[in-house]
Every structure is written in C-alpha cells, then in structure tokens.
C-alpha cells in the first residue's frame, strides 16, 4: 500500500453566508488548497466531496465552476462525518495506487434552514417522537453528571476554553471570548445545555489535496503524512447502553491507535467533535487522554488548553470555529495540518509533531452515532 500525505489545505472562514450558494462557498476553499499545494490544478486525478445537507452533485458543481470537471468525482454523505469520510476515501484511493493526487472537499450551508436545530430524518422513530441532537447530547450530559458527580460549571468550561481558542482563529465563526457565567446565563436549549454550550448554525467549506508520499516529497519540503486513517459505523443496540461512553469512538480510537502503532500519549494536538460541551469531556476519555470520569478534572487542570499537555480543539472546535456539518471533518484536517506545519499563528501548539482529527455524528435510533472517522497525521 502507498502512504498518503497532505500537500495543500484551504478553507473559507466559517460563518453565516445566507446569500451565497453552496457552489460559491465551496470553490474558494478548493482554489486556496490548490494554491497552497502549488500544483497545476489539472494534476488532480479524482475528487471526494462531502456534504450532509447540500444536495446532489455538489462536487461536480464546485469543480465545474472552476473549469476542472471531467474526472472521477464521488459525493459522500455521512452526516457530520461526511468530509472526514471523504478524506478516508481519498487516502484509500491513494493507497490503492490508482491515483497520485486527489482532492477532498467538505462543504455545507445550514443557514438555508433558517435557524433552529439541525433537521433530522423523519423516518427515524425517535425523531418522529421529537428527538433533536441537542436533546440527545443533553441526556448524555445529564447521565454523565449523575454518574460522575460533575457540575454543570465544569461541563460549561469546555465552551469557555474553545471560545478562547476561537478568538485566536481568523477562520472561526465565534471570535469572542465568554465567561462561564455568560455560558450558564445564555438561553436554555435542552437542559442542561444553554445556547453557548451548543455549536452554532453556520456555513463553510474546506479542501485538502492529498498525494502519494513519493509524489508529495517531490512537490514540497514539508508534506504532512497521514499516519493512519479510520472510518467505521455505529452498532445498533436496542437495549440498555451506557450513554456516557461513546461506543463508536471508543472502538474507533482503539482501532486507529493499533493501526498507527501509537497511543494517546503520542498525540501532540487533536481536533475532536465537540458539537456540545459535554462531548469534548466524553471524547477525552474515549481516546484515553484521561480515565473514565476524569474529563472535567483534565479540563480544569489546563492540560487541554493551548500550551497544556494535550491541547484539544485549538481551532475553537465546533463550539467556536463552527459546525457546518459536512465541512467539519475537512476543516479539522486543515487545522491539524497548519498546526503541524507551524502555521497556526496565535493559537500555535509549540512543537506539535503528531496530530489527530475526529468527526462523528448521525443521530439514528439505537446507535451511539451513525458514523465516525478519525485520522492521525505526522510531520
């Protein structure tokens, strides 16, 4: 198998672009990634484009606008893991030997829904009864606080940390720091979550150019190697399950660490799927950055802040950078590549050599989540 490396990244700042269509959100990110790679765009041999709610043929629309269509384009839908799943397809396409250079896109426009919670599939029986994503994560939070005696102030601390990071990121949707008092005093969405413990509604796009390791070394002096790439789906369970431990991410973490020959202690920086405040604490534990029930203590110790032992979501994460769902996985890769190249500016994690991205999602009855894709990168 051939290894893959990232040779170019680009994104548009996440935010609200109600007057811009999805094609026009997407192409500037692709153009930026091509410019960053410094290659002739005609060298791209295949495209994997992720969107959850963008509709049909989004990859073709974007490449057509750039005058670059007429090559294999695969559109990928996997809810919040759409572009991280597209990334896994791109890595596999390089590994197969079929291509030397491929493009991965993530793009989403959520402002078209006019606000409120993310629309879910009405065929699902829990959705038919009124389940929303904030309510699902809220139940996880309630049970977590019950089982581990963690206070709401501790959980809300995730929002404080990630908004602080987002203030340092020009590509973040939310660029203002908030205090824990402001987080707790914001409007109630689904108890215990106030508005500032929920990721914002927004739009965005991100793109990545992958090359085989051999090609990457010819094209630039500082390619970022994909050390391991992982994609899995949740498992259906109709009976009791522990909502404080995310089955799909626990399994994904174990499998990718095995594939990479690494452990949690080897990760210097990570972007994880903090769609709601509680999620980040649960994922600290799922990846083994701390023991079960120790997530709040890890956060409060400062270990997961920039400059800490294991900085998490230096970009601001979903809570501050924003979560245009299908674009999230690709944007996480953009952040980790910038961190490993030393191009992250005021939010730079000093000396980071190994980084990780994690995007999971898809609310389906009986599943922890529908999909989860994790990547580990090294310079």
């Amino acid at each position, binding site marked *: 198998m051939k290894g893959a490396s990232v040779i170019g990244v680009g994104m548009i700042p996440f935010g609200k672009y109600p007057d811009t269509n999805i094609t026009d959100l997407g192409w500037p990110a692709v153009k930026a990634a091509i410019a960053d790679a410094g290659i002739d765009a005609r060298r791209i041999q295949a495209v994997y484009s992720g969107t959850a709610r963008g509709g049909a043929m989004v990859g073709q629309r974007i490449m057509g606008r750039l005058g670059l269509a007429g090559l294999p384009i695969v559109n990928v839908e996997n809810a919040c893991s759409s572009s991280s799943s597209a990334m896994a397809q791109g890595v596999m396409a390089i590994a197969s030997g079929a291509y030397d250079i491929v493009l991965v896109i993530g793009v989403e426009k959520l402002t078209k829904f006019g606000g*409120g*919670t993310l629309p879910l599939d009405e065929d699902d*029986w*829990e959705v038919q*009864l*009124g*389940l*929303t994503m*904030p*309510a699902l994560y*809220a*139940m*996880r939070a*309630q*049970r977590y606080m*019950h089982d581990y005696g963690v206070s709401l102030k501790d959980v809300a601390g995730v929002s404080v940390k990630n908004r602080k990071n987002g203030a340092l990121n020009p590509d973040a949707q939310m660029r203002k720091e908030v205090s824990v008092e402001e987080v707790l005093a914001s*409007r*109630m*969405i*689904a*108890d*215990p979550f106030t508005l500032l413990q929920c990721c914002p509604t927004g739009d965005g796009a991100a793109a990545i150019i992958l090359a085989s390791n051999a090609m990457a070394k010819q094209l630039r002096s500082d390619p970022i190697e994909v050390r391991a790439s992982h994609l899995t789906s949740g498992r259906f369970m*109709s*009976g*009791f*399950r522990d*909502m404080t431990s995310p089955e799909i991410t626990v399994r994904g973490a174990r499998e990718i660490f095995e594939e990479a020959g690494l452990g949690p202690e080897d990760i210097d920086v990570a972007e994880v799927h903090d769609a709601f405040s509680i999620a980040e604490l649960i994922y600290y534990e799922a990846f083994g950055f701390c023991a079960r029930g120790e997530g709040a203590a890890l956060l409060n110790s400062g270990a997961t802040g920039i400059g800490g032992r294991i900085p998490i979501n230096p970009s601001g994460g979903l809570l501050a950078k924003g979560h245009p769902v299908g674009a999230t996985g690709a944007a996480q890769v953009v952040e980790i590549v910038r961190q490993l190249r030393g191009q992250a500016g005021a939010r730079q994690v000093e000396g980071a050599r190994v980084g990780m991205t994690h995007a999971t999602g898809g609310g389906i*009855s009986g599943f922890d989540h529908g999909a989860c894709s994790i990547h580990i990168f090294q310079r």
Partner: protein
Amino acid sequence: MGESIRAQAMPRTGVLYAFSVVHVAAKKWKKPMRIGYVDLKNGARVFTHLEGADLAIGDEVEVGVGTVGDDDEGPIRSFVFRKVER
C-alpha cells in the same frame, strides 16, 4: 440477524435512565418538552415523552397516555411515562 419478529407485551414500568427538558424543538411539540430514555425490566430501552416536573434519574416510572403536542390534525397523543407515586 433474524426476521422472526413478533409483537410482545411490554412491562408497564421502568427506570428513568436519562432525560432532558427541551425548550427548542419543532413547533408541534408542547414546550417545555420532557423526553428521556426508560429502561424496562425485560432489557428494552424506550425513548419517550415524560410528564411531571420533579423527575430524577433512577426514578421508577409508569406508562400512560398523554397529549404531547398539536399539529394540523389536532392534538398529538402518545405514550408517556410518569413517576410512580408511592
């Protein structure tokens, strides 16, 4: 994997595993909307609407019927769980 599915009577009581009082949801739902997961003694977990202001994780709850919202066709009736009064 199997296709041998059949209707079965379910226990009427269970234990509240987790719940949330939801303030933002589709217009048709009565708000605040109390929803949660109830674990039945036969091993099944049910997603359900709840009634009662003083609910807590671990409460024993019992199934009934209630109005949980309103849509174009009138009141939305559903099974709901309420705390078992001792």
